[in-house]
Structures are given as C-alpha cells and as structure tokens.
C-alpha cells in the first residue's frame, strides 16, 4: 500500500446529497487518462498547459450525429465549420468522415483548398468575401452564400469577367421565435428582402441559385426553432420552384447546436439539459418531410454544425501553480491555463477535474489563470477537491473555438496533441517560440 497523501485539515459545513438551488451536486471524478494516455505522462513529455484532441471522440460524435439524421431524412450532408477548429488534422478527420468545408474568409478558403477539399464541396459564408476570394470560389464552382446585395453585385460583375455561372445560395434571416433574433447576416424573410435578392438572382441569369441558407443563432436550446426555420426555407424553396420552375438543390440550416457545456447562469448542467442530435434531427426532419416536397425529390439537407461535433473531443491539461485565500476566506487556486487559451471560459462553466487521486473533501474554489490581468478567471466558483501545487487538472469540452480564438497574450501558445484511434499521441501543432513571434517583427534601422 502506498503512502497516503497529506491534506491540510479544513472545517466545512455539512452538505447532504440533496440538490441545492444550483442543481444536483455531481460527484467529482478524477480523470487520469485521456484515451489511454496518462495526463501526467503527456504533460511530462509535451509540457503544461497542453491541448489534447481525441480522434475517437470526434469520429464517434460525427457518426452519432449522422445516425440521428440518416434514420429520419434520406439526404443529409455535414459541412465542417472551419472557424470552430481549423487545425489541419482536425479538418482532415471531418473530411475523411465525409464532411464538406464551411469557410468564412479567404484564409479559411485557402486552408480548405490546401487540404485537398474539392472546390464544389466548399461553402463560402460570411459578410466579408474579398474580390480575389470570390474569383477563386467562382472558378472552383464553390457554393457562395450571399450575405448582402453589394456582394451580389460583385459576384455578377466577376461572373461576367470570368465567363462562369457562379453557384450561389441566399442567406436568409428570420424570426423563429427565439431571442435574440439574428438579423445582421443575410436577407430578412419576413420583410421581403429575401425575395428581393432571389428575384434579382433569377432575373439576372448570371448566377445559379442552388440553395437557401439560414443560421438562426448559437448554442440553441430549442429544437423547435429549427423546425420553424426548416419550414420557412422549405416554403421559400417551393415558392421559387413554382415561380421560376427552378429546383433548389439544398437547404442549409447552418450551425448552432449546443455542446454539452454548461452556459454561465444555467440552472442545471448542460449534460442533462441540452438537446441531443436526436432532438434536432426529429424537429428538422419532421418539418422537411411534412412540407410539400415530393417524396422522391427531397432537397439535400446541409448542416454546418461545429461546436456540437468537436467540443467534447477537446481537453485542456494544466497544472496548479499556487493556492491562496481571498480576503473573504474563499479558496483561490491559480492554474497555468488562462483566458488567453480558454476563451470559452467567458461563456461556460467548464468542467474541471483533477488528474490524480484526492479525498472526498471539496471546497468552493475560484480558479484563476496565470495572467497578470484581473479578468483572467477560469471558474468563479467550482466545487473542487483540495489541490496542491504541481497537481494536474483536466478542463473538459474545450474543442470548439478555443484553438481558433486563443491568443498570444502574455504567454506563448502551447502544444496541441491528437490521440489517434490506436491511442497513439501525435503532435499536431507545435508550441510557439519567441523566435516565431520575433520572426514576424521588423525593427526600423534607427531603433537598432
């Protein structure tokens, strides 16, 4: 028997197993391994902090999502939302699983092309598409989702110059009964803007209208909103078919499905309350199947799901730097993961688990990052066991947005690992060095 760890004695009020007003108290479990790799060993080899992505989880999640839809609707296509996580290895896994690419900038577009994605399978979204990016997209027969009329005019102009008929879709915004209503992207359904641009496209004859797109919000907790969106887009597609005898090839309902993270201020944990793929699939498929599309000629349903497909596959490994008490006596723990790496800690109460054994005593703890900035708080209040300096922690559900929105602020960005299907780790992004940063800089002669 190994020697028991020493822990300082504390005085703590007794809490029963009953739920308090903040929800059911969940047992904190230690997570010592990720896909068979010891947290301690990984940190030892690759340093701390460390991003770890599980290929197994990615593949099983996308398969689960596909299964949910395929069992209900015959034609479904996922398009990987690059902005959620555009590490090449991650994108490649999604493409291997059959996903198309959904990009929102020239940079992302080039990334997709460099990864070998067929131009016809790239959806180009977003309010800013530069002329040269649009030219590339037109040449490659990519699917350009028009965001505003100025963009449409540019496309018409480029089409003339390039002598090609671009494939376009119209991004539509609409009232689906949720707040806030996203109306800054695309054309409004209710006030007729959408029809206006559709008429312009159809009459211009310069572009091929292939799809309709909407993206009703983010971290949506109401599947019914998607049903409303699907119904409205289906009606619009059928009306276009009636009016112009023109078939709309696909309906793209964008992204917005929530992951299992718990939103700040949520009463119950996300794992228990957030709708599943099945809930969304049921709502969307029913709406489309019950619309007036012919049974044998249903449009392709495209989903640009990002967060829900990758969040759970991402783990952020870190180490405890210090413990201290605040002026009010609250326990503060400082770890080496800051908001520079974990941008999403502004949105979620991330689940944090220790990576080594501990006793059953827990204490309400505030988890701070290492930055010399007041806002660097990872969890304002978490029930955590007592951690010592040098102990490791695992922060869960960090796969979405962090690896694209992280910043080189105060500290450099760490290594990113991928653990493959055979549980073998691969370094997929090297940690930054000072030379990397300095390499981009130029110091004028007179300052040398």
């Amino acid at each position, binding site marked *: 028997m190994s020697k028991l760890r020493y822990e300082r004695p504390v005085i703590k009020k007794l809490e029963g197993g009953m739920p308090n007003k903040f929800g059911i108290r969940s047992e904190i479990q230690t997570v010592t391994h990720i896909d068979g790799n010891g947290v301690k060993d990984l940190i030892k080899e690759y340093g701390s902090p460390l991003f770890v992505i599980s290929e197994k989880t990615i593949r099983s999640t996308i398969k*689960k999502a596909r299964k949910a839809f395929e*069992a209900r609707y015959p*034609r479904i*296509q996922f398009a990987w939302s690059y902005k959620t996580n555009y590490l090449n290895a991650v994108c490649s896994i999604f493409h291997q699983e059959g996903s198309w690419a959904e990009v929102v900038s020239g940079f992302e577009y080039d990334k997709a092309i460099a990864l070998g994605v067929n131009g*016809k399978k790239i959806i180009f979204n977003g309010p800013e598409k530069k002329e040269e990016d649009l030219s590339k997209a037109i040449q490659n027969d990519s699917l350009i989702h028009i965001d505003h009329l100025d963009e449409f005019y540019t496309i018409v102009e480029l089409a003339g110059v390039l002598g090609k008929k671009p494939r376009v879709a119209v991004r539509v915004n609409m009232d689906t009964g949720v707040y806030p209503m996203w109306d800054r992207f695309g054309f409004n359904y209710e006030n007729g803007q959408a029809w206006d641009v559709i008429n312009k496209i159809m009459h211009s004859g310069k572009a091929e209208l292939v799809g309709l797109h909407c993206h009703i919000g983010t971290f949506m907790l109401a599947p019914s909103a998607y049903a409303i969106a699907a119904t409205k887009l289906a009606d619009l597609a059928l009306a276009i078919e009636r009016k112009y005898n023109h078939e709309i090839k*696909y309906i793209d309902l964008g992204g917005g499905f929530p992951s299992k993270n718990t939103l700040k201020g949520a009463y119950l944990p996300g794992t228990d309350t957030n709708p599943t793929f*099945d809930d969304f699939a049921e709502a969307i498929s029913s709406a489309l199947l019950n619309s007036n599309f012919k*049974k044998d000629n249903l449009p392709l349903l495209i989903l640009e799901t990002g967060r829900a497909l990758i969040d759970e596959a991402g783990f952020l490994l870190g180490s405890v730097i210090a413990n201290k008490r605040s002026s009010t006596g609250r326990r503060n723990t400082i770890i080496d993961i800051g908001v520079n790496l974990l941008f999403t800690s502004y949105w979620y109460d991330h689940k944090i688990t220790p990576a080594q054994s501990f006793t059953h005593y827990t204490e309400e703890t505030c988890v701070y990052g290492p930055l010399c900035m007041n806002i660097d708080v990872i969890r304002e209040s978490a029930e955590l066991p007592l951690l010592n300096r040098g102990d490791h922690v695992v922060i869960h559900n960090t796969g979405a947005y962090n690896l694209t929105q992280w910043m080189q602020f105060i500290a450099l960005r760490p290594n990113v690992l991928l653990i493959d299907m055979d549980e073998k780790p691969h370094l997929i992004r090297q940690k930054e060095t000072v030379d990397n940063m300095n390499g981009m800089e130029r110091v004028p002669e007179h300052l040398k």
Partner: protein
Amino acid sequence: MPAVIPEKTSLSSFLRGFLNSYSQVFFSNSKIFAIILIIVSFLDFHTGLSGLIAVLVSNAAALGIGFNRRNIANGYYGFNSLLAGLGIGVMYQSGPAFFTILFFASLLTLFLTATMEGVIGKYGLPYLSVPFLLGIWLVTLAARQFASLQINESGIYQMNELYAWGGQSLVDVYNWFNTLPLPESLRLYFRSLGAIFFQYHLFGGILVAIGLIIYSRIAFLLSLTGFFSAWFYYHFIGANITELSYGYIGFNFILTAIAVGGYFIIPSRWSFLWVILLTPLISILLTSSYTVFALFQLSVFSLPFNLIVLIFLYALKFRERFLTTPELVSYQQHSPEKNLYSHNNYKIRFGKVFFLPLALPFSGRWKVTQGHQGAYTHTGEWQYAWDFEVTDEDDATFSGSGERPEDFYGYNKPVLAPEAGWVEEILDEYDDNQIGKMDLEHNWGNTLIIRHNDQLYSKLSHLKKGSFKVVTGERVSKGQHVANCGNSGRSPAPHLHFQLQPTPHIGSKTIEYPVSHFILHEKDRFSLRSYEVPVEGMQVSNIRHNSTLQKAFHFIPGQVLRYQVKCDNAEPAEVSWEVQVDAYNNTCIWCQKSRSKAWFRNDGDLHYFTHFEGDRASLLYRFFLGAYKVLLGHYRNLVVTDNYPVHTFNKPLLIFLQDLVAPFFLFTRSTFRLHYLELEDELMQTGFRLKSETTLSIGKRVTKRLETEWQIGTSGIESFRVLDEGKTIEATLIES
C-alpha cells in the same frame, strides 16, 4: 399512339405465316428449317404442291375470315392444313377434282383447327395435329365415294418420277443415299423423320435431320432419344418391330419426345426421363388404336403422339408438388434452347417478382439483431420475424450508460410503412420498460398492424407509446412515417420487431416473406440484395434513390433517343431509338435501322433489360448488354451483378456444344457486372461514371469480354463507350 408497336399486315408477315406453317410441324419458327422442309416436301412434286396449296388456302382464308394475325403469322392456322394437304397429295392423283377436294379439305381443316383451338385450348392445352387427323380421316372416308378421285400410284414408281423430275443424276443421288452403309436402326430413324412429311425415304429423312439440328440441338437429341428408346423397348419386350417400320409410324415417338422433352416442358434430365418412360405408353396406344382404325381401313397417323402429349400435359396440371420436375414452359419461345436458357435465367432474375415489393420499415442503416428462427423469441409459429436495432461502429446499440431507453440509438427513431396498405389495428397503451426489464404480460407491447391485402399483414411491435402518426382504418403509403421505435412489451432494450402474417390478429402466426431490394453494408462496402430475407447480423438499409439515375433510365414510350456513334476510325454515324410499348404493357427500345428490340422493365429501384431480339451487330445489342441491370441509386464502389441466359452472349461453336448438353449441365456462363465508380458533382447530381463488364467464361477462364463505360448526367445517358473485342465504339447523346 405512335409508340405502340403496330401489328404487321404486310406481305412479309404473310410469307412468315407460310414458312412457319412448315416449321411449326416441328414446333419451330426457324426460316431455314422451313425452307428445308419445303424442299423435302417437293421431293415428290405432286405431294409438295398439294401441301403448298393447302397452306396458302388455309392462311388466306384465315386472314379473310379475320382470325388473329399474329397466330396466322406464327403458322398456327397453317400447319394442320399443310399436313392434310400432304396426306391427300400422297393418296390421290392430280386433276381438277383433286384440287377442288384439296381446296375444301384445307378449309375444313382450318375450321377444325379453330374449333380445336376453342375446345382443347380451354383446358390450357395445345391442339397439336388433332385437326389434321380429323380432317384427313373425314376426307379419306368420304373420298371413297368420289369416283373422280384416283388413288395415287406415284409412290410405287418412285424412280420414274425422280427421273422425270431431275434426270439420271437425281436417281443416282437417291440410290447413293439408299445404299449408305447405315445400321438398320438409323435408317429407320431417318425414314421416320421423313415420314412426318409423307416422304418415306432416307434422303428426305436426312434433310429433315439436318434441318432439325440447325433449328435445335436439344430437339435433335430428343428425337434420337425418343426413337431409340422405342427401338430398344420393342427389342426388349419382343414386340412387333414392323409396327415401327410400317408406314414409318415410329415418328410418333420422335414428335412426342420433342414435345414432351423440350417444347412444352423445360428440357432437363427429368424431361428426358419422361420421354423414355412414355415410350411404352405410346406403343400401347399405337397398337390399340391401330387395331381399332384398321376396322375402318384408316391409318392412325400421329394419333398416338397427340393422345399421349395431351394426356400427359393435362395430367401434369394436377400436380400439387414437384412442380419443377419437370417444369412446364410458361412463355413459349419456339425453341427448346431458348425455353431452357431464358426460363432458368428468368426464374433467377424475376422468379420472385410476384411477391409484394416490401421495403424495410425504417430509414437509415439498422442491424438485424434477431433474424428468422432466432435464438431468443423467433421460434415456432413466430419464427419468421426480424428484430432491428441501430448500432455504432463498435457494434454497441447505445452510447452513454445505456441505462435509459434514450441512450439507445434506435430509440424514438421513425418507423415506416414497408408497403402501402390500410392501418388494421393500433395498440398504444404501454409505457416503455426500464432497460433490462420486460413486460411479459403484454408480449407485443404497442403494436401497429397494416393490411396490404387480405392474405398479407405486416406487424410492427414494441413501439413508443403516443408516437403513432396514423389512426385505425387510415390508408398509408409506402415509406410513410407511422410511429416511433420504443421499448414496450417483451423488450429488454429498444428495438423494432417486424413480421409478416396471414391474419390481422396480434399474435398471429408468421409467414416467410422476402424484402424486395435492400442494401447490405459491410464495413465500407455496399452490396445489393434482391428478394431476400435479411439474416441475423446483417447491417441493412433501404435503397436511397438517385433522381438523376432514375430519370436517365426512365424510358417513356414515345421518347426518342438519338446518339452520335463513332466506331474506331470510321465516319461518325447517327442512330435513333424509340421507346415503345406493346398491347401487354411490355416496354422496349426499338431500333428501326437494325430492326432490333431490347425489352426492359423498371420497378422503381432497378432498371432491367429482359431480352433482346434482332441484330447482334447493332449498337442497341451492346446497349442492352451494358445496361442489363442498373440500380437507380448511387453507392460508391457498389458492384451490381447478374447473369445472362447463356445464348445471349456466346460464341457460335461453343453455344452449339453447350446446347447439346444444356438440359443436363451448363459449362459456359455469361455474367454481367456493373461498377459504380464516381459522382463528379454530388450537389448537382451530375457526372455519374459507371462501368459494366459482360463476360463469357468456361469455368474460371474468360473467353469473351465486352466493356462499357457510362457517363450519366441530368440530360440522361450522356455518352457510353463500348470496348468489344478490340473495337471501340463511342456514342454521344444528341437528343433524348
């Protein structure tokens, strides 16, 4: 309606009727055989002429009266009159009275033919040469009173006749044949063959035998089998062998052998066995009928053949078991070979199309976790049932802890109607069980029963309470969402129970019934299964149709397909095909230039070509071979396979040898494979590339090969390229 195939009324169809009247005597419609038979009949000029007049009179009268033109063209109204004409020609001398009698005797035989068609036909039997027998007997009996008719004596002075007709050389040829060193049995065989056309000599018989080989190898083999089983039987039993040689009446054995062994019955070792077994029966009939007819001084002619074939075919209709030993021909193609090859092929390809085309009752890919005669509950009267569950790549049926129904992939997924019908009964009362518990009191749980017809009901069980989308009595269409998968009844974990049953009751016994077409998933491989029962462990899904492929192979009657054709270095030419439909709703693609037809059918899931008629050098023939069977859904790297009837794609000498042994075994195989290569533009559904291979093989060795590469897009079959024995043919669509 231009697309409907017109019935031909031209001279050529009359000529066809004339020729077929000759070959029909041997159940054939071969033109070469007909010409040989005409020559044989004219070996005695007077007889030949008499037969020819009888055919012309009979066919012209049938046309004038207004009988079915197709039947006339097939020779059905001519061959009995031909035989009567030949018989009368042999018996009586030429003269005005003779021709008058001949004319009316032909007319009489025609009426007798129509009468027999009605009388015998209503039992589903052929009238064979019964009209001829009645006709010739009536005429013979009556003619004894006609003083002006003279008995023909030409047969007696045959040499004189031959000399007068063809000079010394013909007499020499004739004599040479007669002195051929042939065994007695073979001599008798040839003479018996000739006797069918009232030509009792070796030369005629040998000619008929050659014609018979050209027409059908199997028929020739049967004629030998029939004759020699009689020969050996007579020797074995010690019966009067002169019965065979007297009037060469032995042809009764030959005709019976062809009729029973390969024409009305699919040739097989069983049909050959019956040919041998029927020999003693024919001999009994021969002797007994001879005894009776001798009283009237009448010849029995082909009476034993007619009687035995009719009795035998009629008796076979009373079978309740062993319906395939031997099997009756259902679609007559006037050739034992074609009957055999097409029938066997048809049986494999379309033998099960009479089943209602059931689909799987779900969307997406599910696993059969308990099949027919399953180990758990599919036993006894309930053995023909399936349990379906959704599994993941690790073969698990749930994710998470698996403690709640919601953890299971299949739970709450839509359940679809497998085929159109009416909702017969709904049971929607029981809550989902906890995982691992079973509600043994309400075995089937929430259940839906659909009536497809009065003998076929489908039952879907363990459904989710409150998930029903239909009500009792409602009409449901195929694939309609009717309820959701649940965990009620005797169900420890969410699954879908599906069975077919003959009665509407919950708890009814089950019946075995196949699923029409489905896709079997194995890792990343797909294969198509048709009219099969999915078995335990299979991962299956319905066919996901592809509208572009569906459109490309949806040939509409009246539609014209025009292709520009380029063959190697030759000048480009143009072919034009028209889609047609006949009175029985059979559809074909018709090429006017090559006078060819490729018959097809389309069941919504697959396009099939069924058979080809016409010129095998035409592009249409290659089109037929290359698009023999096409799945109307796109699955990358899927391979669709099928077999052709062996005579459809073969080599001349090889098929000759194959024909000879075909009733017993096939050593050649013609196979079709279609590869689904790629889809260039998934969104716009254009740029399908498919490749088909047609091969002829002996064992594992491929001896002949044809390849076709297809390019299919929104405008249809945009182009195809045929590689045929070193020749390349490229066809590009101009109009569809």
